[in-house]
């Protein structure tokens, strides 16, 4: 289990828990992490491995990450969340390696005093992860073949910034 806690100046980066792990994700651990006496709201999002893609039966997913870059990017996303909303604690976990159908590949949990911040921050962060975090997904089909996927959200970002 690879875990990273990041300190940062100005914002409470110490209150972020960011994980890239080949172990199954446990949302209850993240709920514990974001507990806080001042918390009035906890919002969460889980991306779940689906069993089919355009009619093809998916046997499992395989995720690969550029760990160092992905953790930097997740840290930056947390920083941006805290600039936009007064959220309390943030926990983000993303699987690497094999993920079975029905298992979460990504979990985001955010706590805040009032509900709006937590809800909007969760929405923002899953979109930003899809747009830019250096993680790749391969769908392995029951017929044995596989396909590396590409996030639409990434293309929107790239089209704005220009290709390499």
């Amino acid at each position, binding site marked *: 289990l690879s875990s990273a806690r990041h300190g940062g100046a100005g914002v409470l980066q110490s209150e972020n828990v960011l994980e890239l792990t080949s172990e199954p994700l446990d949302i209850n651990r993240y709920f514990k992490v974001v507990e806080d006496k001042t918390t009035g709201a906890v919002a969460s999002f889980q991306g779940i491995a689906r069993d089919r893609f355009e009619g093809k039966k998916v046997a499992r997913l395989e*995720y690969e990450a*550029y760990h160092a870059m992905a953790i930097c990017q997740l840290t930056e996303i947390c920083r941006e969340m805290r600039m936009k909303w007064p959220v309390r604690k943030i926990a983000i976990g993303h699987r690497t390696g094999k993920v079975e159908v029905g298992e979460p590949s990504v979990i985001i949990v955010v706590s805040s005093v009032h509900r709006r911040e937590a809800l909007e921050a969760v929405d923002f962060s*899953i979109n930003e*992860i899809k747009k830019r975090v*250096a*993680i790749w*997904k391969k769908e392995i089909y029951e017929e044995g073949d596989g396909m590396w996927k590409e996030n639409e959200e*990434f293309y929107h970002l790239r089209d704005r910034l220009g290709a*390499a």
Partner: protein
Amino acid sequence: MPAKIKVRVLFFALVKELLGKAATTMELDEGTDTARLLQLLTTKFPALKSISGSVMIAVNREYVYSPVRINNGDEIAFFPPISGG
């Protein structure tokens, strides 16, 4: 003869599969930029040609969207469009 620099080059996902390796260390002429490095790699690994239009480049863990000069000790990564989440 130009001075040499040494860089760490990383490959991910489909790029890694096409090249058959995850990482390599390369010696480059000083002044080489990321576009030139991609050319060099494509010559060395022709399989890369099939996706060279969509290959993304990161220098020291930051995306670069236009060619940048490479410095000694840089970590350069080549990968396809991302698909996390």
